[in-house]
């Protein structure tokens, strides 16, 4: 096994009261790859990452990070892994240079080495101009970038990023993406990434796994997962959710998969473009005209929806032909 790989075998984590947060999860992250881990709230993402980063113990199964077992070789795992958790844990009274130098020294660097490394990393995350300010005065984006720098101090072989761009503005988010890609490409760091942004997984991940209720329901490259969907969608927007509901009833015999999302009906079809005239005709027969019609290729959002029955982004009502039930889905 490479010292930059992650192997998770039959991972189970149960809590008292017979709550099983992770239920027989298996995956492998090859050296130098970016692995995107997606799932709705409470699916088991955080529990999995806590086990992989040595903050929690598995109930059963085996997790190897960089060739080290997270249960019996936790200290070694901490030496090869860099971790930036969702909650940025940075002392607001300290300055970025102080934090990075201390982090380096804890990992065994001399003061000169740690200082040089800190300067290097502050340049990398574009915080060189803010070294004299206490971290408490930093913006959310600056704190995340500093957190990323702290995770890189000891030149980790494997990097765990738990929702690295949550709460960032779009520009900062793209900057973090660029850095993640560069760390992976230039330094060969294997990256395990959880995210609530499907676009982020699509943009960064070589492989994506979706976890629901503690089990991985689908895994593959974003391209393959989208291709496997095989269907484009015709998106019809109506004046009101009631009219959309009526539209769904009219069109439900045209496809095996149809969704109602507030005032929008999505009809999934192979070669959807050719079906547009028939769709319009069917609606007009019933005296219904959509206010807009668009055609979209499958996205990772569609993959997620098919795998979980939920959308990942924001709270919205989703209704599928199979479930026919409205459900609130909170942002993860």
């Amino acid at each position, binding site marked *: 096994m490479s010292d930059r790989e992650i192997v998770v075998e039959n991972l189970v984590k149960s809590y008292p009261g017979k709550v099983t947060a992770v239920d027989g999860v298996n995956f492998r992250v090859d050296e130098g790859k970016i692995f995107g881990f997606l799932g709705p709230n409470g699916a088991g993402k955080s529990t999995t990452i806590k086990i992989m*980063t*040595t*903050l*929690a*113990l598995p109930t059963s199964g085996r997790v190897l990070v960089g060739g080290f077992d997270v249960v019996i070789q*936790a*200290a070694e795992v*901490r*030496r090869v892994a860099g*971790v930036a*958790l969702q*909650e*940025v*844990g*940075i*002392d*607001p*009274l*300290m300055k970025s240079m*102080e934090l990075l130098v*201390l*982090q*380096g*020294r*804890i*990992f*065994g*660097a001399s003061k000169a*080495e*740690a200082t040089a*490394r800190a300067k*290097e*990393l502050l*340049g*990398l*995350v*574009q915080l060189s101009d803010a070294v004299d300010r*206490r971290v408490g005065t930093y913006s959310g984006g600056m704190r995340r*970038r500093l957190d990323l720098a*702290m995770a*890189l101090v*000891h*030149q980790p072989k494997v990097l765990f990023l738990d929702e690295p761009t949550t709460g960032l503005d779009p520009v*900062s988010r793209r*900057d973090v993406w*660029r*850095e993640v890609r*560069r*760390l992976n490409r*230039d*330094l*060969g760091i294997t990256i395990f990434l959880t995210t609530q942004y499907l676009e982020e997984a699509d943009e960064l991940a070589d492989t994506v796994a979706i976890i629901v209720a503690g089990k991985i329901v689908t895994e593959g490259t974003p391209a393959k997962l989208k291709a496997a969907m095989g269907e484009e969608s015709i998106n019809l927007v109506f004046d009101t959710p009631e009219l959309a509901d009526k539209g769904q009833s009219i069109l439900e015999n045209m496809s095996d998969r149809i969704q109602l999302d507030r005032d929008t009906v999505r009809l999934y079809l192979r070669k959807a473009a050719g079906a547009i005239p028939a769709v319009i005709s069917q609606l007009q027969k019933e005296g219904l005209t959509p206010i807009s019609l668009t055609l979209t290729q499958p996205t990772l959002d569609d993959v997620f929806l098919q795998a979980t029955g939920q959308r990942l982004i924001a709270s919205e009502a989703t209704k599928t032909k199979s479930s026919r039930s409205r459900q609130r889905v909170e942002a993860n």
Partner: protein
Amino acid sequence: MTTKTIELTVSRPMMNKPLSLPVHIYLLVVRSLTTILRTPEALLPPVAISIFFLVIYQSTLGKAAAFIPGIGGSYLGFILPLSIVSGSLSGSGIAAQNLVRDIECGYFDKLLLTPVRRAALLLAPILAGAIILGVQATIVVSAGLLLGLKPVTGFLGLLTVIGLGVLLGIGFSGFTVSAALGSGNAAATQGASFLFFPLTFLAPTFVPLSLLSGWLEVAAKLNPITYVLEAMRAVLNNGWDTQAIGTSILACLALAVAMYALAAFALSVRTRRS
């Protein structure tokens, strides 16, 4: 961020050398002192209050040595130890407040993701707190000298008084640190610090131990503060009393052993992987 690119050195040897516990403690003590000193507003009031009461006691009861038996020297030498002990009790919360702040802001968990020795997470804030306590006690002793204190054992006697104050503070900080680790909450930790203040008065606070009687005498004899006060007063007013000093050190050590067993348990619970 812009698209500026800075190459990270990949050829540099990994800095992954395991460090000893003392080195980790040293690194975290320096860091704790840095952050403690950045909130001077938390450090000055205990010193100011100790000096305030010292001045008040000396002004109102300064001539009490003449009519209270057993004081055995100047009243200032008798009452200064109370100010030092009060400062030790309030200062014993410094380590805990530092620790609970780390827990609340998530930095404690961040450290758990590094190879830092777990014992250093407990010992470093306590040692940093002890250093601050030493400085605070020195300031209070200096105030005593300005008020006319003339210790019979000289400079070494003053160092002994400061050392005993620090030792007592370290013992009590084991309790406040336990509260910090157990609760992870600043308000609960602050509350734990206040629990000590009644102990100050279950001791020969304003009169010698020989003048106490009944339940208060029993309580005072069980209270480690009593032995620290007795030793400090002996050193300042009577001379080197090795028995009193030895007893006070033993009392502080017994307190520390009990409190640190509690703190070690609280640390193991907080850092335990479940």
